[in-house]
């Protein structure tokens, strides 16, 4: 058993994978808490997909894929924030349009390339086992900045989540705060891309926070619990992936999803089983 646990750590690429998975988990959870609480999960998905054409452009131009991906994600996020202001269209609708549009653009760009190589697929499905030391440092620095920024802006982000109108009347730059949050979501997604890939990144952003929400009524507790869940899920996913030779990114997401289902069934008060139990005496009456 001990060997089962220690063996992967003897390999440098697995050490890097563990570190990046843990950082991605924490960063996504801290930013993701606000995504879940504001019902913005869909925008996470839109940005994740918008990163794809950016990555494709970077691939065509032989530029840094993370940077071009982040740029595309931020442009999309800002466009969504601006166009949603019109209030003529539902935010979900605007997000849907950009979600599909950017993915279409990515596909067209990729189709111009003869060689559809591993570089690009690794961005779609994660490349956590193929990271270098510089990747680890970049993820750590961006992650630290994001967590610090969330901590600094927590009051304002909470105020806007509670009531936009009152926040605006109190003098908060609500639109700017929206864009900052979207930019933070984009950065968190680009960080997590390395771990789980473009397609699965939403799981890190949303699933642990949603799981924790099942069991707590305080933002601080929810964020802390979600961090623990996400860290556990990432590490457990990596172990399973290593020992059974399964896709690392996919395995992390599966463990996170499994924990959510467990919470949905068994969480105190809000879980399905609990509701059944407390409903039973009523039926008996």
């Amino acid at each position, binding site marked *: 058993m001990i060997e089962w646990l220690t063996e992967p750590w003897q390999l440098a690429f697995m050490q890097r994978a563990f570190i990046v998975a843990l950082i991605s988990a924490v960063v996504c959870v801290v930013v993701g808490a606000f995504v879940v609480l504001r019902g913005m999960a869909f925008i996470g998905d839109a940005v994740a997909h918008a990163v794809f054409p950016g990555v494709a452009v970077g691939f065509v131009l032989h530029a840094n894929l993370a940077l071009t991906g982040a740029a595309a994600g931020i442009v999309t996020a800002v466009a969504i924030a601006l166009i949603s202001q019109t209030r003529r269209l539902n935010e979900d609708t605007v997000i849907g349009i950009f979600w599909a549009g950017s993915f279409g653009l990515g596909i067209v760009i990729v189709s111009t390339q003869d060689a559809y190589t591993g570089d690009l697929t690794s961005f779609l499905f994660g490349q956590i086992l193929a990271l270098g030391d510089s990747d680890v440092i970049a993820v750590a620095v961006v992650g630290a900045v994001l967590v610090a920024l969330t901590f600094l802006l927590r009051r304002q982000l909470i105020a806007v*989540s509670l009531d936009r109108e009152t926040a605006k009347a109190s003098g908060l730059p609500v639109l700017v705060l929206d864009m900052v949050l979207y930019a933070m979501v984009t950065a968190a997604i680009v960080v997590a891309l390395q771990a789980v890939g473009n397609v699965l990144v939403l799981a890190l952003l949303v699933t642990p926070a949603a799981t924790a929400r099942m069991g707590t009524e305080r933002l601080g507790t929810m964020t802390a619990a979600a961090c623990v869940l996400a860290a556990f899920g990432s590490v457990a996913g990596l172990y399973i992936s290593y020992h059974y030779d399964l896709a690392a990114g996919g395995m992390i997401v599966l463990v996170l999803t499994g924990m959510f289902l467990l919470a949905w069934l068994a969480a105190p008060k809000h879980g399905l089983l609990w509701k059944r139990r407390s409903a039973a005496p009523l039926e008996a009456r």
Partner: protein
Amino acid sequence: MRADHENPTPENPGLQVSGVAVTLGGNQVLHDVDLAVAPGETVGLIGPNGAGKTTLLRAVLGLLTPDTGTVRIAGEPPRGARGHLGYVPQKHGFAWDFPITVAAAVLNARMVTRWGGAARRADRDAAARAVARVGLTDLAGRPIGALSGGQRQRVLVARALAREPGLLLLDEPFTGVDVPTQELLVGLLGQLAEEGTAILMTTHDLAQARAVCTRLCLLNRTVVADGPPSGLDDPALWLRAFGVAESELLLTGTAKEAT
């Protein structure tokens, strides 16, 4: 029959709305609106749906800029006077499913323009006082999602009071609220007015408006009548403002149904 307002005092000159006109989407919603709320006054803004009550409130809050006319709070335009403003929005726009306690939600309202740093003793004390004034001290640690409709209205009032405002704006404070909370609000607004707070509220509830307001302002795109509740008994006034007699409004209980 416009009531004479006392001259605003320099420390808290209340609210002055002069000649305000607002056009929204090509429709003139408000024109030539003059309204003053002096410290210690409680003014009820009454009018049917579409009369421009919410629009006027938004102009006072600085959320929209009038086409013409001025809004002055403590002698400043709304953007410069936000520290003087307390706003109690309608309950339904608030995210009651957000995981936060009553105490934290109230403290947040006071700290909202403070970037980073920790809450000071004075901030915590002001928030605790606001929670106490609405009678929620025993529920301060409870998540806001677990509160009743009346308790939720109290949280919104406490959030506004935590900012220690000179001008308090309330949007339909009596709508969907239980009787104990209505009674608490009437008492609390009376106290606040005595302490010199200028209060402006929109309401459909004529009975409560008469109980709590020192002046009523009948709005239908412009101010049709403005005076103490007792001075607004002339049925012709109500007919002009809303197309129905006041007695009918009182019978239905709300001006809303009279539209």
